[in-house]
Each structure stands twice: as C-alpha cells, then as structure tokens.
C-alpha cells in the first residue's frame, strides 16, 4: 500500500479536479473531459508501450488514430448499393491488381540476389502498376463519387455495430505499423521519428483525398452509436422517473405544477446528455482497464523483462540471443494497434469522422507530451499523463482568461492590449503545454510517476 501511495494520491487529485469541474462548470463538461481523458489514456498506453518498454520513437500516432477512425466509418456506415453497382467492380479489380503487384514485388525480392537490376525491376513493377491501377480505377472512382455526392458519394461500409470497429481499427493500425516497421525500424532514432511523422502525413493525405473511400473533407456524419440517443431517452418513462427521483429535493421546492413540469423537462434534457456520456465513460473505462491489466501483465512477464533489456542495451540483448529486430517489430505493431483502438473510440464518441481535423499538433505531439509528463515506462504514469495533459489542454482557456484578467486588471476594458490578449486566450494552452514539457524534462525527466521496476 505504502509504495503505491503516490499513484493513489496523483489519481485522487486528478479525479478531484474533474469533480470540481463538474460542480463549478457543469457535469456535462466534466464528463466530456473525462471521456476524452480516457481516450487519451488509451493513446498514451500505445505510445508508452513503444517508447517506455522498447525505446522506439513513433511520431506517427496521428496516422494510426485516423486509421482507427476510418475503421469506424467502414464498419458502421450502411453500404451504398448504388455506388457499389456503379464502381464497385472497378475498385475490387484494382484491389486485386494491388495485391498482385505486392506479390510480384515479393517474388522478385525472393527470387533474385540484391543487385541494381533487381532494384530497377521492382521500380518498373511499381511504376507500371500504379499507372495501370490509375487507368482501371479512375472510371470507377468517378462513378462512385457521382452517386448522390451531397449525401453519400462513397462506397459506405458494412453496416455492422460500431463497437466492432474498435477491434478492426486495431487491426488496420497494426497492419500499417507492420508495413512501416518492416521498412523503417532499422533507422536511427531521430530518422525513425521523422520518417514516421512524414508517413503519418501521407496517410492523412490519402484519407483526406480519396473521396470514394472516406468522403474526404466532406466528412461522414451521423455514425451509429453504441449508446442510446438523447432524444429517445427524453421520451422514455423509466428515464424521466429516474431523473425525477434524483432531483426530487429540488423539484419539491417548486409548488406550481406547470413550473415544476418545465423544471423537470430541463432536468431531463440535461440528464439525458449526462446519461449518454456516462454510457460512453463506462465503455471506455472497460477498454482502459482491460488494456491496463494486459500491459501490466506484459510489463512484469519475461517478455517485458526482455523488452527492457533490449531497450537498455540492444547489443547485449542481441548477444544473449534475443531477436531484436523481431521484437521491435512486434512492439511497434502492438503499440500502434492500441492507438488504432483509441482512434476508433474517438470517432465513436464524436459520431462523426472529419479527416481535416487530424493535425500532428493535437494527435502526435500532444500525446507525446502526455507520455513524457506522465512517466514513460510506467503504465499508471502514462494514463495519468493522458488525464493531466488533456485536463489542462481543455481548462487552459479558462485559466488563461483568469490570468489575463488578473494581470490586466488595471487596464480599461477597451484597452487594445487587453482586448488582444483576451482574443488570444485559446493559444495559452500551447504555452502551458510547452512550458510544462520543458519543466518536466528538466526537473523530473522520468515524469510525474517514474518507472519503478521491482522483481517480484
């Protein structure tokens, strides 16, 4: 118990802060912060597996998040039959061509010795393949995008419950990570960082501009939900009764019947959105707990020890007969798959998929700040980092506004400096993140909850 005191204290403070938000701002805001904290926690766990366990830098978190989101779309949206009949065959044929191209490249790679000629052959296969695929797919893509472009204009998905996409998102992200890992993991640490950052940008570019698959910047809205809809809840009896019971003390103060009814309505509307958010919180909490148990088990298993050995001294681990390359690839795939789950969860919660919103600042660097601030190598630390940083990220604007008002209290309300500062309050969050990261890196380089490994 004693040794876990700092963990318990840190988490209690965090929960206390969220509850304070609930009391002083509103429970709606508190719960939406809490939900996004949970999603961030899943992302940081993925990044922590790669960085904390194995020392691999992955600046491509944004790409995996977006792929997870794509999975949510492809799983849950109902298929667009017209689009399939218009261009489905072309797309399927191009898909076969891509598979054929990959197989051909693999064949050449296996069959011939490494030489200049082999490189040229592969280059020819790839370039001619791309040209052929373009010719085959173009009419199909055009036909698909012309099918009711205001509403669909894409192939749609499978029409399954959106929860499945959490697993599929993990598979997508893991698959991408496998490909990237195969080609890029041999690079030096800082090159790997840059390469993954750029590859994630490519992924986003594809998701943004391949309208037939993702609707691109036109966004996909109104995705299915695993939780009930607010409007339905507001008309169900048991829910209204529940809300009435909860707020009975407040309602009993009102004697007038009409007034009482309107107050109740207000409570029901508020309560319904809180209830929906609570449903999401429950689902996310289950995911976080399952992942936490798995990652903790892994950390203390022989496999976890081997990963730390590889991280701390690659050559020594290699000399002991551990396959460093294979383990790096494995952990790269695992970590990315977890990030993919988070991406699907995020889209599930929002109910919409907006490719334009994936930016490296928010989805890559912020997650890294979370991991470093929380404590890399320690799962509890990483999750705490997700909570603390996301909380600050949201609450930075109110805090910034308070600080601006405090420092410029002597100035007139219309003074240009004050007006300017109040306008730029949203950017104080960047400042806080940056200064926070720099301070932590300098004075507590292992994070708030540092890595502590005990041999049991």
């Amino acid at each position: 118990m004693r040794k876990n005191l700092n963990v318990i204290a840190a988490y209690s403070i965090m929960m206390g802060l969220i509850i304070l938000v609930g009391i002083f701002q509103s429970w709606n805001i508190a719960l939406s912060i809490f939900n996004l904290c949970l999603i961030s926690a899943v992302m940081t766990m993925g990044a922590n597996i790669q960085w904390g366990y194995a020392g691999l830098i992955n600046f491509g978190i944004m790409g995996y998040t977006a792929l997870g989101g794509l999975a949510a779309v492809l799983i849950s949206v109902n298929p667009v039959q017209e689009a399939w009949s218009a261009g489905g065959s072309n797309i399927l044929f191009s898909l076969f061509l891509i598979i054929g191209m990959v197989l051909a490249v693999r064949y050449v790679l296996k069959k011939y010795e490494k030489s200049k000629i082999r490189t040229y052959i592969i280059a020819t296969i790839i370039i001619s393949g791309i040209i052929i695929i373009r010719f085959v797919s173009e009419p199909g893509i055009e036909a698909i995008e012309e099918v009711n472009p205001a509403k669909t204009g894409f192939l749609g998905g499978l029409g399954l419950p959106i929860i499945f996409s959490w697993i599929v998102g993990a598979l997508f992200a893991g698959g991408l990570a496998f490909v990237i890992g195969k080609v890029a993991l041999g690079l030096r640490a800082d090159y790997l960082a840059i390469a993954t950052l750029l590859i994630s940008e490519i992924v986003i570019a594809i998701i943004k501009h391949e309208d037939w698959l993702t609707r691109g910047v036109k966004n996909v809205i109104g995705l299915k939900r695993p939780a009930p809809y607010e409007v339905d809840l507001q008309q169900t009896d048991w829910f209204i009764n529940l809300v009435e019971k909860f707020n009975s003390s407040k309602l009993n103060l009102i004697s007038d019947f009409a007034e009482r009814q309107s107050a109740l309505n207000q409570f029901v509307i508020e309560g319904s959105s809180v209830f929906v958010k609570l449903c999401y919180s429950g689902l996310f909490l289950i995911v976080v707990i399952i992942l936490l148990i798995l990652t903790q088990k892994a950390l203390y298993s022989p496999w976890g020890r081997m990963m730390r050995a590889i991280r701390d001294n690659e050559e020594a681990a290699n000399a002991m007969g551990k396959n460093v390359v294979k383990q790096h690839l494995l952990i790269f795939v695992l970590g990315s798959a977890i990030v993919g789950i988070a991406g699907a969860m995020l889209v599930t919660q929002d109910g919409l998929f907006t490719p334009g919103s994936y930016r490296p600042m928010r989805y890559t660097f912020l997650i890294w700040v979370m991991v470093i601030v929380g404590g890399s190598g320690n799962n509890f630390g990483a999750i705490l980092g997700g909570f603390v940083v996301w909380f600050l990220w949201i609450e930075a604007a109110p805090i910034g506004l308070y600080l601006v008002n405090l420092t410029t209290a002597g100035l007139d309300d219309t003074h240009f400096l004050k007006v300017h500062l109040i306008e730029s309050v949203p950017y104080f969050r960047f400042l806080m993140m940056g200064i926070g990261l720099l301070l932590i890196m300098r004075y507590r380089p292992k994070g708030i909850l540092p890595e502590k490994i005990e041999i049991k």
Partner: protein
Amino acid sequence: MDFVNAIILLLNYIFVPALAYGSQLALGAIFVTLIYGILRFANFATGDMMSFGTMFTILFTWYFQSLGISLGVLPTALLAIPFAIIFMICYMLLIDKFVFKYYRVNKSPPVQLAMVSIGVMFVTQAVVRIVIGPSDRRFFDGEKFIIKAGEFKEMTGLNEGLAIKSTQVLTIIVTLILVSTLFWFLNKTKTGKSMRAYSDNEDLALLSGIDPKKIVMITWIIAGILATIGGALYGLDKSFKPFTYFNNMLPIFAAAIVGGIGNPFGAFLGGYVIAFSEILLTYAYRKFFMYVLPESMEPGGLVQLLSTDYKFAVSFSILVIVLLYRPSGIFKGKVL
C-alpha cells in the same frame, strides 16, 4: 513556335515557381542541417522558429509603414529583416541558454534534445499566435511583377505568357547571396573551419583548442539569420500563416535528409530536389502535350501523375525512399 510555347509553359508553371520554392526550402534545410551537424539533434521547432522570425519582420514592416518609410519598388520587409534578425538571434540565444544548454552540458542523448525541441516548438507557436494571431497575413508591398503574362505575350507574340513575380526573383537572389556567403564563411574563415572540425569530430576539435561555447553561439546566430530570411521570403512570396509554417517543417526535413543531414551543400540542393519533384509530379501536362504532339495524338485527360492534393506526399515518399536506400542522403552527410 509550338515548341517555344511549350518551353515557356514549363518555365512559367514549373521552373520559376519551383526555383523560388526550392530556395525557401533550401534556407530552412541548411538551418536544420547546421543544428543537426553542430548541436546534434533534430530540431522539431524549425517551422515555428521560422515563423517567429517572420513575425518580427512583419511587426517591423508595419512599424516602418506607419512611419511612411518604404523602399519604392522593393518591399519594405527588406528593410525590416535586419532588425528582425537581431531580435531573432536574441531569442535563439535565450532559448539556448535556458533550455538546450543544460542537455548539451549533460551530454543527453539526441532523442532527449529532440523531445525538448518539441517543448520549444509548443512555446514558440504559442508566442507567435498570441502576438500576431493565427490568421493569414500579407505584408508585401512595392511592385508585384517584373514581367506580367500579358506584357510578355505582347512582347514576344507567343500564345503562352511568362509571369515573373518580383518576390520570386528576390528570393532567388537573396538565397544565392546568403548561401554563397555562408559557404565562403564555412570553408575559408578560421571560425567556419573550426565549426566544421567541431561537427566532424567533437573530441579532436576540443583537443585542438576550439572553444565550444563560441561555436555554439555562432551556430545559433547563423541559424537565426537563416530562419528569419527563409521565413520572411516564404511569407513575402506566399503569405504568412503560423500553421503553414509549422507544416513547412516537413518538406524542410525531407530536403535536409535527402541532401544528407549535416551537409549544408546537400541541404541546399535537397531543397531544389524536393521542390522540383513536388511540382513536376503534380503538374497537369495536358497543355504541354497539346503543343508538342501533333493534333491526332492529343491526350484526353489532364496527364497528371498525381493530383495536387498529394503535393506533400510526394516529398515524403522521396524522403522515405532515400532513407531506405541511402540513409546518409544523396550527398553523403555528416561532413559540415
């Protein structure tokens, strides 16, 4: 005649823009490479440092404009750049003193320094947005074109016009002057040589009495000059928006690595490699082929290899290919 038209078309839409864009990337890439070669970390704050320098340029431009000072046909920003550089260098040295120095003295691994540079990136970005706001700013004044498309058509009697913006010419000239001065400095002067020695082998350089503090300071000063001028030229040519500058970090990294990181000349050429391949691969060649080929063979589509949406993706793919097949870059890196 058609052939000349085709050439002018390529000049107008590919060569001139790519040359200007390449110069802007080249300045950034040299900045990255210098930091990497001497301070030994990948600086993720590159784009934001450039936007920071540009911000000062814009503020001084506004100040001069309010005083009624202008350079006539040339943009006022040229006058503002030297002042902006001074502020930028102060900022760089402050950052180094309070942030990077600690890790350098402790000999932290490069990854940690890169992580710290992300912190600097956040702070710089915040300061820029708080001071000047996130919106698009144009601060160009003076004569916009050297040759307008219409004038060129009248002058030569061709079908295709050639428009050359004064900012494009300005960019290329300033880049050439700056880069040749820099290479002269690195290759001929004593300080420059000691910088190269320090980059090549730190221990040997220290043994032969080179003062690391001085080297680091001069590196930041040069970096400040490069970042401000590169950023200001980009802003003059296109427009200033903090988010675009942050994104520009990616092709700049690509240019630096393609050229062989740590090698300024490679970075210089890498900028053009990236710029030209981006524009060459995403240009629609339909009109070009209409001029060159006989009428019967005219192409039906746009004859575009990749849609312009994938502009960034091109440079990144080049980078990935280079990283995989020749990680030291086209021109062997790590010799400043």
